[in-house]
Protein backbone atom coordinates (compact mmCIF):
# COMPACT_ATOMS: atom_id res chain seq x y z
CA UNK A 1 0.00 0.00 0.00
CA UNK A 2 1.12 3.53 -0.64
CA UNK A 3 1.66 6.47 1.66
CA UNK A 4 -1.90 7.67 1.28
CA UNK A 5 -3.35 4.65 3.02
CA UNK A 6 -4.35 4.86 6.65
CA UNK A 7 -4.29 2.44 9.47
CA UNK A 8 -5.85 2.39 12.91
CA UNK A 9 -2.68 0.70 14.10
CA UNK A 10 -0.28 2.93 15.94
CA UNK A 11 3.07 1.84 17.22
CA UNK A 12 3.89 2.03 20.90
CA UNK A 13 5.79 5.28 20.47
CA UNK A 14 2.67 6.86 19.06
CA UNK A 15 0.55 5.46 21.86
CA UNK A 16 2.91 6.95 24.38
CA UNK A 17 2.49 10.24 22.51
CA UNK A 18 -1.25 9.95 22.98
CA UNK A 19 -0.77 9.23 26.63
CA UNK A 20 1.46 12.27 27.03
CA UNK A 21 -1.13 14.38 25.27
CA UNK A 22 -3.74 13.05 27.65
CA UNK A 23 -1.61 13.84 30.66
CA UNK A 24 -1.17 17.38 29.39
CA UNK A 25 -4.93 17.69 29.43
CA UNK A 26 -5.00 16.78 33.10
CA UNK A 27 -4.74 13.32 34.53
CA UNK A 28 -8.19 13.57 36.05
CA UNK A 29 -9.66 13.54 32.55
CA UNK A 30 -8.30 10.09 31.80
CA UNK A 31 -10.26 6.91 32.16
CA UNK A 32 -9.17 4.41 34.78
CA UNK A 33 -6.95 1.94 33.00
CA UNK A 34 -5.86 4.44 30.38
CA UNK A 35 -2.22 3.90 31.20
CA UNK A 36 -2.71 0.16 30.74
CA UNK A 37 -4.29 0.91 27.37
CA UNK A 38 -0.93 2.23 26.22
CA UNK A 39 0.20 -1.38 25.99
CA UNK A 40 -3.08 -2.73 24.67
CA UNK A 41 -4.04 -2.94 21.00
CA UNK A 42 -4.30 0.52 19.50
CA UNK A 43 -7.86 -0.26 18.40
CA UNK A 44 -9.08 0.99 21.79
CA UNK A 45 -6.89 4.01 22.47
CA UNK A 46 -8.93 5.47 25.30
CA UNK A 47 -10.53 2.29 26.60
CA UNK A 48 -14.29 2.03 26.87
CA UNK A 49 -14.68 2.04 30.61
CA UNK A 50 -17.49 4.54 30.96
CA UNK A 51 -21.10 3.38 30.99
CA UNK A 52 -23.77 5.25 29.02
CA UNK A 53 -25.07 8.28 30.80
CA UNK A 54 -28.80 9.12 30.88
CA UNK A 55 -29.64 12.79 31.13
CA UNK A 56 -33.39 12.28 31.31
CA UNK A 57 -35.02 14.97 33.40
CA UNK A 58 -32.05 17.28 33.87
CA UNK A 59 -32.52 21.04 33.56
CA UNK A 60 -32.24 22.86 30.20
CA UNK A 61 -28.67 22.79 28.91
CA UNK A 62 -26.53 22.07 25.88
CA UNK A 63 -24.42 18.95 26.13
CA UNK A 64 -22.29 17.17 23.56
CA UNK A 65 -20.88 13.68 23.17
CA UNK A 66 -18.27 12.69 20.59
CA UNK A 67 -17.53 9.11 19.55
CA UNK A 68 -14.51 8.05 17.49
CA UNK A 69 -15.88 5.35 15.18
CA UNK A 70 -12.44 4.86 13.62
CA UNK A 71 -10.95 3.42 16.81
CA UNK A 72 -14.20 2.26 18.39
CA UNK A 73 -13.59 4.62 21.29
CA UNK A 74 -14.81 7.80 22.85
CA UNK A 75 -13.41 11.01 21.42
CA UNK A 76 -11.27 11.55 24.54
CA UNK A 77 -9.18 14.69 24.26
CA UNK A 78 -11.01 16.02 21.21
CA UNK A 79 -10.96 19.82 21.11
CA UNK A 80 -14.33 21.51 20.50
CA UNK A 81 -15.04 25.17 19.76
CA UNK A 82 -18.56 26.42 20.54
CA UNK A 83 -19.73 29.44 18.55
CA UNK A 84 -23.03 31.28 18.30
CA UNK A 85 -24.32 33.24 15.30
CA UNK A 86 -24.86 36.82 16.46
CA UNK A 87 -26.79 37.88 13.35
CA UNK A 88 -23.74 38.83 11.34
CA UNK A 89 -20.97 36.40 12.19
CA UNK A 90 -20.05 33.35 14.22
CA UNK A 91 -18.75 34.38 17.63
CA UNK A 92 -16.55 31.97 19.54
CA UNK A 93 -17.99 31.37 23.01
CA UNK A 94 -15.59 28.77 24.40
CA UNK A 95 -13.11 26.04 23.64
CA UNK A 96 -13.28 22.78 25.59
CA UNK A 97 -11.95 19.24 25.40
CA UNK A 98 -13.81 15.97 25.67
CA UNK A 99 -12.95 13.93 28.74
CA UNK A 100 -12.33 10.19 28.83
CA UNK A 101 -16.03 9.55 28.25
CA UNK A 102 -16.04 11.72 25.13
CA UNK A 103 -17.91 14.54 26.86
CA UNK A 104 -16.72 17.91 28.09
CA UNK A 105 -16.67 17.91 31.90
CA UNK A 106 -19.32 20.64 32.06
CA UNK A 107 -22.39 21.37 29.91
CA UNK A 108 -21.45 23.64 26.99
CA UNK A 109 -24.25 25.98 28.02
CA UNK A 110 -26.45 26.01 31.10
CA UNK A 111 -28.46 28.49 33.14
CA UNK A 112 -28.54 32.05 31.78
CA UNK A 113 -25.97 31.16 29.14
CA UNK A 114 -28.35 28.63 27.58
CA UNK A 115 -30.23 30.66 24.99
CA UNK A 116 -32.03 29.92 21.75
CA UNK A 117 -30.10 30.61 18.57
CA UNK A 118 -27.91 29.16 15.86
CA UNK A 119 -24.83 27.39 17.15
CA UNK A 120 -21.74 25.69 15.80
CA UNK A 121 -19.54 23.07 17.43
CA UNK A 122 -16.23 22.80 15.56
CA UNK A 123 -14.51 19.41 15.91
CA UNK A 124 -10.72 19.57 15.66
CA UNK A 125 -10.34 16.19 13.98
CA UNK A 126 -6.93 17.09 12.50
CA UNK A 127 -5.35 17.54 15.91
CA UNK A 128 -7.18 14.54 17.38
CA UNK A 129 -6.08 12.01 14.76
CA UNK A 130 -2.55 13.42 14.71
CA UNK A 131 -2.35 12.75 18.46
CA UNK A 132 -3.66 9.23 17.86
CA UNK A 133 -0.89 8.60 15.38
CA UNK A 134 -3.32 7.87 12.54
CA UNK A 135 -1.49 7.91 9.23
CA UNK A 136 -3.58 10.10 6.97
CA UNK A 137 -2.92 11.78 3.66
CA UNK A 138 -2.30 15.51 3.91
CA UNK A 139 -4.24 17.68 3.77
CA UNK A 140 -6.51 15.20 5.55
CA UNK A 141 -9.97 14.62 4.06
CA UNK A 142 -11.57 16.01 7.23
CA UNK A 143 -9.77 18.51 9.44
CA UNK A 144 -11.92 21.05 11.30
CA UNK A 145 -15.53 19.94 11.04
CA UNK A 146 -18.36 22.40 11.73
CA UNK A 147 -21.58 20.98 13.18
CA UNK A 148 -24.30 23.62 12.90
CA UNK A 149 -27.56 23.28 14.75
CA UNK A 150 -30.32 25.30 16.33
CA UNK A 151 -31.53 25.65 19.88
CA UNK A 152 -35.16 26.54 19.24
CA UNK A 153 -36.51 26.50 22.76
CA UNK A 154 -34.29 27.31 25.73
CA UNK A 155 -36.81 25.56 27.99
CA UNK A 156 -35.80 22.21 26.50
CA UNK A 157 -32.35 20.70 26.85
CA UNK A 158 -30.39 19.85 23.73
CA UNK A 159 -27.89 17.03 23.42
CA UNK A 160 -25.64 17.09 20.37
CA UNK A 161 -24.32 13.66 19.45
CA UNK A 162 -21.41 13.40 17.03
CA UNK A 163 -19.84 10.31 15.47
CA UNK A 164 -16.62 10.78 13.54
CA UNK A 165 -13.80 9.05 11.72
CA UNK A 166 -11.16 10.47 9.37
CA UNK A 167 -13.53 9.70 6.48
CA UNK A 168 -16.95 10.71 7.65
CA UNK A 169 -19.13 12.05 10.41
CA UNK A 170 -22.71 12.25 11.59
CA UNK A 171 -24.47 14.45 14.05
CA UNK A 172 -27.97 14.47 15.37
CA UNK A 173 -30.20 15.64 18.15
CA UNK A 174 -29.47 13.10 20.83
CA UNK A 175 -30.95 12.36 24.21
Amino acid at each position, binding site marked *: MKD*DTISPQADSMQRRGVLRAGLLMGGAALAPGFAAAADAPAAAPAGLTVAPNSQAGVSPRLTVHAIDTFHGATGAGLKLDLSRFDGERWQLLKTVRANAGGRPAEPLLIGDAYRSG*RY*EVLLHLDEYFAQMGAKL*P*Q*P*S*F*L*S*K*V*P*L*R*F*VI*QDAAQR*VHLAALFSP*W*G*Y*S*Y*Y*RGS
Partner: protein
Amino acid sequence: MAGISTHVLDNFNGRPGAGMRIDFSAREKDGSWKLVKTMTTNADGRTDQPVLAPEAAAVGEYELSFHLGDFYERQGARLADPLFVDKVVPLRFAIFDAKQHYHVPMLCTPWSCSTYRGS
Protein backbone atom coordinates in the same frame (compact mmCIF):
# COMPACT_ATOMS: atom_id res chain seq x y z
CA MET B 1 -12.51 10.14 -12.91
CA ALA B 2 -11.17 12.86 -10.67
CA GLY B 3 -13.08 15.81 -9.26
CA ILE B 4 -15.92 16.22 -6.76
CA SER B 5 -19.50 14.95 -6.81
CA THR B 6 -22.26 14.88 -4.23
CA HIS B 7 -25.62 13.24 -3.65
CA VAL B 8 -28.33 14.41 -1.28
CA LEU B 9 -30.42 11.71 0.37
CA ASP B 10 -33.42 12.91 2.32
CA ASN B 11 -33.65 10.23 4.97
CA PHE B 12 -36.69 11.89 6.51
CA ASN B 13 -38.73 11.01 3.46
CA GLY B 14 -36.62 8.11 2.23
CA ARG B 15 -36.00 9.77 -1.13
CA PRO B 16 -33.33 11.62 -3.09
CA GLY B 17 -33.09 15.21 -1.94
CA ALA B 18 -34.40 16.91 -5.07
CA GLY B 19 -34.34 20.69 -5.50
CA MET B 20 -31.87 21.46 -2.71
CA ARG B 21 -29.58 24.44 -3.19
CA ILE B 22 -25.87 23.74 -2.69
CA ASP B 23 -23.15 26.40 -2.60
CA PHE B 24 -19.68 25.21 -3.56
CA SER B 25 -16.69 27.17 -2.23
CA ALA B 26 -12.94 26.78 -2.31
CA ARG B 27 -10.50 27.93 0.33
CA GLU B 28 -8.16 30.73 -0.74
CA LYS B 29 -4.54 30.97 0.28
CA ASP B 30 -5.45 33.61 2.88
CA GLY B 31 -7.83 31.15 4.54
CA SER B 32 -11.06 32.79 3.33
CA TRP B 33 -13.75 30.86 1.46
CA LYS B 34 -14.52 31.90 -2.10
CA LEU B 35 -17.89 30.94 -3.60
CA VAL B 36 -17.28 29.05 -6.83
CA LYS B 37 -20.87 28.28 -7.83
CA THR B 38 -24.37 27.56 -6.66
CA MET B 39 -26.19 24.45 -7.82
CA THR B 40 -29.56 22.79 -7.32
CA THR B 41 -29.96 19.04 -7.01
CA ASN B 42 -31.94 17.25 -9.71
CA ALA B 43 -34.69 14.67 -9.26
CA ASP B 44 -32.09 12.06 -8.32
CA GLY B 45 -30.56 14.30 -5.62
CA ARG B 46 -27.41 14.85 -7.69
CA THR B 47 -26.10 17.83 -9.63
CA ASP B 48 -26.46 17.77 -13.41
CA GLN B 49 -22.87 18.93 -13.82
CA PRO B 50 -19.91 17.78 -11.70
CA VAL B 51 -19.37 19.88 -8.60
CA LEU B 52 -15.73 20.10 -9.65
CA ALA B 53 -14.68 18.82 -13.05
CA PRO B 54 -11.63 16.54 -13.37
CA GLU B 55 -9.59 19.19 -15.17
CA ALA B 56 -10.26 21.70 -12.39
CA ALA B 57 -9.36 19.37 -9.52
CA ALA B 58 -6.53 20.62 -7.31
CA VAL B 59 -5.22 19.84 -3.86
CA GLY B 60 -6.92 22.10 -1.34
CA GLU B 61 -9.89 22.58 0.95
CA TYR B 62 -13.45 22.78 -0.29
CA GLU B 63 -16.90 23.40 1.14
CA LEU B 64 -20.35 22.28 0.12
CA SER B 65 -23.10 24.22 1.89
CA PHE B 66 -26.44 22.46 1.85
CA HIS B 67 -29.56 24.60 2.24
CA LEU B 68 -31.54 22.21 4.39
CA GLY B 69 -33.74 24.92 5.89
CA ASP B 70 -35.36 25.97 2.61
CA PHE B 71 -35.57 22.35 1.56
CA TYR B 72 -37.53 21.23 4.59
CA GLU B 73 -39.53 24.44 4.92
CA ARG B 74 -41.08 23.69 1.56
CA GLN B 75 -42.43 20.53 3.16
CA GLY B 76 -43.65 22.62 6.13
CA ALA B 77 -46.87 20.97 7.23
CA ARG B 78 -45.18 17.59 7.48
CA LEU B 79 -42.70 18.70 10.14
CA ALA B 80 -43.87 18.29 13.71
CA ASP B 81 -40.97 20.34 15.09
CA PRO B 82 -38.65 23.05 13.81
CA LEU B 83 -35.34 21.96 12.37
CA PHE B 84 -32.52 20.94 14.68
CA VAL B 85 -29.89 21.14 11.95
CA ASP B 86 -29.08 24.68 10.89
CA LYS B 87 -30.76 26.13 7.81
CA VAL B 88 -27.44 25.98 5.95
CA VAL B 89 -25.11 23.08 6.76
CA PRO B 90 -21.48 23.42 5.61
CA LEU B 91 -19.48 20.30 4.81
CA ARG B 92 -15.74 20.91 4.60
CA PHE B 93 -13.20 18.47 3.23
CA ALA B 94 -9.92 18.37 1.35
CA ILE B 95 -8.67 16.98 -1.92
CA PHE B 96 -5.28 15.47 -1.04
CA ASP B 97 -4.67 13.81 -4.42
CA ALA B 98 -6.10 15.58 -7.46
CA LYS B 99 -6.06 12.33 -9.47
CA GLN B 100 -8.63 10.72 -7.18
CA HIS B 101 -12.38 11.28 -7.19
CA TYR B 102 -14.16 12.66 -4.14
CA HIS B 103 -17.79 11.68 -3.82
CA VAL B 104 -19.21 13.41 -0.77
CA PRO B 105 -22.86 12.55 -0.06
CA MET B 106 -25.14 14.36 2.36
CA LEU B 107 -27.65 12.22 4.23
CA CYS B 108 -30.07 14.43 6.10
CA THR B 109 -33.20 14.68 8.14
CA PRO B 110 -34.48 17.72 10.06
CA TRP B 111 -32.61 16.35 13.07
CA SER B 112 -29.44 14.87 11.67
CA CYS B 113 -26.74 15.07 9.03
CA SER B 114 -24.26 12.47 7.89
CA THR B 115 -21.48 12.45 5.35
CA TYR B 116 -18.54 10.32 4.34
CA ARG B 117 -16.11 9.82 1.51
CA GLY B 118 -18.23 7.74 -0.81
CA SER B 119 -17.81 6.16 -4.19
